[in-house]
């Protein structure tokens, strides 16, 4: 199909590189936020890729290995937040630990996540329902802007999925 025969965009290549690196270091992560929605058809643009992981000593070691694999390093943007940001790479990756806004814990988000193939690498991706719930709970200005489009995307995808059976 022609639509699938184009050259991958730089964004796709970056996502494939990230998925490959997560697989290589064995990081158990779920893509959340706007990128998760984009992977399910939402016509959005975003500034970064958000990953949800468990806060464990082993995962900290894997995150260091991930940074080395991608040629970046981690920094915390605020003492008030545990979010770690990968800098020095072509694009930004944020790591969220243990739960999303709205009390959506890692185990729950992962149990419902889609398993997508991204350039031959498995990637767990939060459902649209969980992305919407977390953005509704976070309630930042950018979340409020994205919510109507995310809700419409969820309705459209639901119709397509019913059709596909």
């Amino acid at each position, binding site marked *: 199909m*022609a*639509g*699938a025969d184009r050259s991958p965009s730089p*964004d796709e290549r970056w996502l494939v590189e990230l998925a490959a690196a997560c697989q290589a270091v064995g990081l158990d992560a779920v893509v959340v936020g706007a990128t998760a929605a984009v992977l399910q058809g939402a*016509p959005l643009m975003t500034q970064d890729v958000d990953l949800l992981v468990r806060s464990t000593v082993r995962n900290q070691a894997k995150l260091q290995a991930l940074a080395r694999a991608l040629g970046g390093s981690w920094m915390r943007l605020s003492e008030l937040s545990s979010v770690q940001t990968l800098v020095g790479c072509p694009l930004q990756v944020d790591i969220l630990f243990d739960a999303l806004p709205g009390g959506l814990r890692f185990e729950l988000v992962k149990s419902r996540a889609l398993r997508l193939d991204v350039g031959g690498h498995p*990637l767990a991706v939060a459902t649209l329902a969980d992305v919407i719930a977390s953005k509704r709970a976070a309630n930042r200005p950018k979340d409020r802007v994205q919510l109507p489009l995310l809700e*419409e995307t969820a309705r459209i995808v639901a119709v397509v999925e019913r059709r596909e059976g």
Partner: protein
Amino acid sequence: MARPPVAKPAVPPADAYRDRLAALFAEVAPQLPDIDPAVVLQVLDAWLRPVGSGGGRRFLLREGPDGRRGP
């Protein structure tokens, strides 16, 4: 002299993709009359060629030299 038969042009793959997208759109859009058809089309297009499948989609904003963000 008889003219050689004119070869029937092969249907370009792009048309096959457009036809599949159009058929899906024609089925789904009427079920969601309150949603902008342009949004329905964008989501269906993304459904048929998702990010990661080599469909060529861009979704990440980058900061340009002027500080503005764009694809």
